[in-house]
């Protein structure tokens, strides 16, 4: 039920932000459509830990900040490689260990890998993620383990609270 309310609140915020027309008629259309979507979502039974991952909580924001810094760092690395006249690349397929227990956690980890330029997820297996890495530096297993650990901790947040 909390998830339904949260979805309703998120949709209402989205509607208010995108509309810009706050007359009673238009507002009532907005309320109607929000309620309609929440009812459909409830009927489809998609308001679970994946559809509405409230369990991640505020830790998600912290993770985003950390990920943002990582993205900037790896962007600078990728940009330097691309612009360097000799283009010192060493493309390779590497296998990163993934310790997440849920699909959601794996998706967060795989997407985080793709978001950092220099590594692209090409296949997700049980316990492993196949990654295409552009250089030796981006194929670093230790750096991947750090990210893996952070995502797993993020995912665990729900078990604690």
């Amino acid at each position, binding site marked *: 039920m909390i998830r339904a309310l949260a979805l309703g609140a998120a949709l209402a915020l*989205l509607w208010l*932000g*995108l509309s*810009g027309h706050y007359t009673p008629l238009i507002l009532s259309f907005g309320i109607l459509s929000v309620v309609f979507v929440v009812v459909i979502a409830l009927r489809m039974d998609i308001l679970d830990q994946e559809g509405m991952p409230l369990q991640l909580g505020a830790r998600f924001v912290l993770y985003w900040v950390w990920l943002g810094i990582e*993205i*900037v760092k790896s*962007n600078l690395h*990728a*940009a330097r490689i*691309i*612009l360097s006249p*000799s*283009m010192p*690349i*060493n*493309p*390779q*397929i590497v296998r990163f260990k993934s310790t997440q227990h849920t699909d959601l956690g794996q998706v967060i980890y*795989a*997407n*985080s890998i*793709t*978001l*950092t*330029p*220099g*590594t*692209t*997820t*090409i*296949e997700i297996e049980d316990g492993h993620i*196949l990654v*295409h890495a*552009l250089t030796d530096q981006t194929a670093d297993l230790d750096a991947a383990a750090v990210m893996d650990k952070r995502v797993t901790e993020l995912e665990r947040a729900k078990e604690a609270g």
Partner: protein
Amino acid sequence: MDALLPIVNSISWLFLATGSIFLLIGGIGLLRLPDFYARTHAAGVIDTLGTGLILIGLMMQEEIGLNTFKLVLIGFFLFFTSPTSSYAVAHAAWVAGQKPWTNSNGNTKDAKEDVES
């Protein structure tokens, strides 16, 4: 507020210009890198820092309001959709049997010349 405006404007243009440079680098990367998989990394530069910086720059062009919210939303959705679509494309290539170019095996066509030149 008015006194701050030129400063905000300058910072905004700094973001826009840096973002554009990263878009350009991404474009150069798309041309220079040897194969499909390597080019996804250049696309990653465009997707993340290129669009990100430009969105931040655009937010500063506007007073805080509905348009700021919409720009945040664009960034938010890109943040989820761009890696997902990258994965879909890369995974499709992998499943279809596309072999990654490497320093040792990929001596076909123009790719190697690009690296050596």
